[in-house]
């Protein structure tokens, strides 16, 4: 990564964010075990990103979820709702006890984010892949028209980039010069049927996105320092930004790491202690 200067983050900040990430992983394991179904793999893989977003990067007010100057996060990859919910709960949007209601009848924590069920912090209901970035483009466009400093973030999966609509959205982000839009793609190189390059080869996402007018960073998405540095640099860029966050599916629970079969599985209750021990190290 091109850097003009070395950014010093206080080591206490990095340690703090790593601790949050561990907590989020534990929350994800427990809430999914409680639910009996859900998507463990990528939810674990994204814990570091969500720690950085909700505890460092986003300009937001958990006590005032509709604050009109807030940064907004669109979870296009809706099935990793568990990590979003954990981050929202831990940063103060709703009580952490409610995480135990994930996917249950009557819960505000729907299997994929369902805004009208009333959970604070959900910008838009998602779950059908490829749609969220378009909405993020609409929000970013309006933020510019309204001359606010709000930044719009969108998280997608790499498999999700097989959806054509994602590229329509990227094309339009560049057309409208949405430099307040940051797209983060979770590149864990796997999807339901197996490795992405066997299912449908994405080729070079870097080259594709650059051709579509994005500034692209390719980083280790499980490295908090790299995430912090990248977000810092991306603020100065005058076009939309894509952060390819290379993560490991199942990160934090060693026996699961890299195993695509954990895309859509939840841990069994008797596995919880073992998984938590791996996370806490």
């Amino acid at each position, binding site marked *: 990564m091109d850097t003009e200067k070395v950014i010093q983050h206080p080591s206490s900040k990095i340690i703090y964010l790593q601790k949050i990430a561990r907590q989020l992983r534990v929350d994800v394991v427990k809430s999914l075990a409680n639910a009996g179904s859900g998507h463990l793999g990528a939810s674990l893989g994204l814990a570091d990103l969500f720690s950085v977003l909700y505890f460092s990067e986003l300009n937001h007010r958990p006590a005032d979820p509709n604050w009109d100057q807030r940064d907004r996060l669109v979870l296009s990859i809706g099935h990793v709702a568990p990590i979003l919910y954990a981050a929202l709960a831990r940063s103060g949007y709703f009580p952490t006890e409610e995480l135990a209601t994930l996917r249950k009848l009557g819960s505000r924590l729907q299997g994929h984010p369902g805004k009208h069920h009333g959970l604070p912090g959900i910008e838009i209901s998602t779950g059908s892949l490829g749609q969220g970035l378009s909405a993020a483009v609409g929000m970013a466009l309006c933020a510019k028209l309204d001359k606010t400093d709000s930044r719009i973030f969108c998280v997608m999966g790499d498999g999700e980039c097989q959806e054509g609509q994602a590229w329509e959205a990227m*094309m339009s982000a560049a057309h409208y010069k949405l430099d307040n839009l940051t797209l983060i793609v979770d590149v864990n190189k796997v999807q339901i049927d197996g490795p992405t390059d066997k299912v449908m080869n994405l080729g070079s996402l870097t080259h594709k996105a650059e051709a579509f007018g994005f500034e692209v960073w390719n980083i280790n998405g499980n490295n908090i320092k790299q995430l912090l540095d990248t977000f810092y640099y991306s603020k100065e860029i005058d076009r939309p930004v894509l952060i390819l966050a290379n993560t490991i599916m199942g990160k934090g629970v060693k026996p699961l790491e890299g195993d695509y079969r954990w895309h859509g599985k939840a841990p069994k209750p008797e596995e919880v202690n073992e998984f938590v021990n791996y996370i806490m190290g």
Partner: protein
Amino acid sequence: MKAGRTGFGEGLLEIGKKDPRVVALGSDLTVSTGMHLFLKEFPERFFSFGIAEQNIIGVAAGMALSKRIPFMSSYGVFSALRTTDQIRVSICYNDLPVKIGGAHAGLSVGPDGATHQALEDIAVMRVLPKMTVLSPCDATQTKLATIASVEQVDGPAYIRYGREAMPDFTSEQQEFVVGKAQILSKGDDATIIATGHLVYEALLTAEQLAKKGVSVRVLNMHTIKPLDEESIIKAAAETGALVTAEEHQINGGLGGAVAEVLAKRYPAPVEMIGMPDQFGESGNPMELLDKYRMTHPYIAKAVERVIKRKAR
């Protein structure tokens, strides 16, 4: 004679003047859909997104979540069918005030042929929860419907309108209330429930049959959803025989909606005028309407058939 798209364009302009939240998203069919009037007046509120309808729907969702009332329009085949999942999830599941124009509805698109003739859009849009489906009968009513889609509807709306200049027979003074059918002709022997341009054909039918002493009620069902069930039941109770007429497949559109109501609440014989589960083709509009039996001579025959089926 006036084109439905002119009505849409005038309606969009007028509601745009009244409500500063209204924005318009173009899909490379600005003039063809009638949006150019809005573009001319409010260029800073018009956003071109090209031939990417799924993205446009999503962008509209994002803008609606940023305090705008977004309109988008393309031909009904593209704005409603290509985009169905996006409308379902990004718009309806989120219950957002996005207004979708379905231009070039029906067979009367003419020479462009089957791919451009929307004959399935009513069926698909009406089955989506939270969606309001409007199908005005002429250009003037299209203008009123477009304005009403903002003033009377809080959530998602689909407005279906035609391409060609067709008879423009309603007036702006005729009140347009979403969900309330208009009785355009009184009668007791049978009812024609029509929508879109076929309302005009239904009125011609009523005139024609009046000369034979058959009095036909004509209901303009300009709102397919929410359907004016009471007017349908009243028609069944008071006239005993119904014909539905739409430039749309006979499966699942207005005919289906009416049949659902009657079967549940007041069974009565129904004849359906519409596309008989086929794709359209190239031709001039009136030729096509005639070939597929949607013009008044065929509607009249359907009325005569359904009267014979009345319960003794």
